[in-house]
C-alpha cells in the first residue's frame, strides 16, 4: 500500500492500467526481458538519449503530429540501465494511457517532463509509473520468479536482474503483489523519501514506521547504509523487532515479532530498507 499520491489512483483505474501494460508486455515479450525502447520504435516514436541537465528523467513530447521521447542520461545513468528502461516504460505509459496521449497530442497539456520511479506526488506520474511497473515486471512472470527465492533483498536483486529492472521498482512490485508481508522504505538525501507496505503489513495495521534518520538506532543496517559504510554482501542486514520500526507496536504486544532489516545503498538514488517478519507473519 503506497503512502503517496498513488492512493488517489482509483482501484478500477489502476486495474485497467495494469491490464493494458501486461497485455503489451505479454503480447510483445512472452519470455525474456521487455525492451521498452523497441516498443517505442515500433510505435513510430523516436528516441533521444543525452545529458539534459537536471530538470527531468524523461520527457514525452508531441510536435507536428509525432511523438518523441527524451531520456536524460544525467539522471538515469546509461542507455540500458534499469532506471533508463523504467523511464522509457514510464513514457510509454503516457503514450498508451488514452487520455494522457490525447491530451498531449491535442496540445492541451504541455510536453511532459517526467520524474519517474514513484518520486512524484502527481497522480498522472503515478499512473505512468504503474504502467511501467506492470510492463517491465508483469505479474504472472514476476510471481513465478519470486517463488524461486527466499524473502529478502538477495531474492529481489536476482529478480531485478532477471527482468532488467531497478532494485527499487522490483522491491515495490514485491510489496505491492504481497509476495510476503514486508515494508519497503526509501531514503533520499539522508532523509525519509517514501514507503510501500504489502497488504499483509497493512492488514496487520502496521502503518507508521520510523520516518526520521534521527530515530534510527546507530548501528542498524539502514543507519550504516546511510552513513555510506562499505556493505560486504552489497547490503547490510540484522535482526530487529516490530516495536523498533513500527510506532504502534507495544514492546509487550503480540505484534512485536522479530523482523529482518536489510538496507542497500543505491548510489545517487539513496538507500532502500526492506523489512519482513522472520516467521512470515505478524503475531
Amino acid at each position: 500500500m503506497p503512502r503517496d499520491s498513488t492512493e488517489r489512483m482509483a482501484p478500477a483505474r489502476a486495474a485497467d492500467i495494469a491490464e493494458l501494460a501486461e497485455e503489451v508486455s505479454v503480447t510483445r515479450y512472452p519470455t525474456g526481458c521487455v525492451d521498452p525502447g523497441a516498443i517505442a520504435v515500433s510505435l513510430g516514436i523516436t528516441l533521444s538519449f543525452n545529458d539534459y541537465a537536471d530538470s527531468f528523467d524523461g520527457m514525452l513530447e508531441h510536435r507536428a503530429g509525432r511523438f518523441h521521447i527524451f531520456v536524460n542520461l544525467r539522471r538515469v545513468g546509461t542507455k540500458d540501465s534499469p532506471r533508463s528502461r523504467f523511464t522509457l516504460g514510464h513514457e510509454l505509459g503516457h503514450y498508451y494511457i488514452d487520455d494522457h496521449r490525447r491530451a498531449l497530442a491535442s496540445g492541451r497539456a504541455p510536453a511532459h517532463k517526467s520524474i519517474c520511479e514513484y518520486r512524484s506526488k502527481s497522480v498522472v506520474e503515478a499512473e505512468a509509473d504503474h504502467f511501467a511497473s506492470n510492463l517491465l515486471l508483469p505479474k504472472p512472470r514476476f510471481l513465478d520468479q519470486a517463488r524461486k527465492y527466499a524473502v529478502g533483498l538477495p531474492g529481489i536483486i536476482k529478480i531485478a536482474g532477471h527482468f532488467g529492472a531497478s532494485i527499487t521498482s522490483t522491491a515495490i512490485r514485491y510489496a505491492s503483489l504481497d509476495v510476503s508481508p514486508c515494508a519497503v522504505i526509501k531514503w533520499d538525501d539522508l532523509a525519509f523519501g517514501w514507503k510501500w507496505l504489502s497488504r499483509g503489513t497493512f492488514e496487520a495495521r502496521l502503518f507508521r514506521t520510523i520516518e526520521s534518520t534521527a530515530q534510527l538506532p546507530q548501528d542498524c543496517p539502514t543507519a550504516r547504509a546511510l552513513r555510506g559504510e562499505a556493505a560486504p554482501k552489497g547490503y547490510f542486514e540484522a535482526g530487529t523487532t516490530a516495536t523498533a520500526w513500527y510506532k504502534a507496536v507495544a514492546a509487550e504486544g503480540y505484534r512485536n515479532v522479530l523482523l529482518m532489516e536489510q538496507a542497500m545503498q543505491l548510489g545517487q538514488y539513496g538507500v532502500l530498507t526492506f523489512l519482513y517478519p522472520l516467521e512470515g507473519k505478524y503475531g
Partner: protein
Amino acid sequence: MKEHSDNQVVPDVEQQEEQLNLLVYQALEQDGSLIPTTPEAVARAEAELDNEDLELPATLANFDAALRHASQNHLMNCMPLQIPTGTEENLARAAREGGDVPPEVEAQMRADRAASEDDANAKGQH
C-alpha cells in the same frame, strides 16, 4: 406424439414449436441474417456465395482498407469513451514539477530530436 381417434399420429405442441424454430433458424441462416455456426451451414453458405459471384467494394477488399474506411467515417454505433476528468490539469501540473530546461539544453534537445527523426525517416520508420 399423440394418437388421434382415427389412429393418425400428429406431433404435439412442443414438437411443433421445435420444428418451427428449426425452420425459422434455417430460413434466417439462408437469408444471411444469421451467421452460419455449424460446418454444414458454413459449407452451404460458401457454396451459395460461389454461385452468386459477388464482388466486394474496395473499402472491404482487405482488413486494412476496412479499418481505414471505418476510422475515416467515424463509426456511428461506437460507445462514447469515458474520458477521466482532470488529466490535462494533472499533466500540466506534473510538467511543472520538473525543473526549467535551460536554453542550451533546449537547443540540444531540438538538435537530438531532429537527428533522431532524420534517422527514422532514412530507415523508413515513418
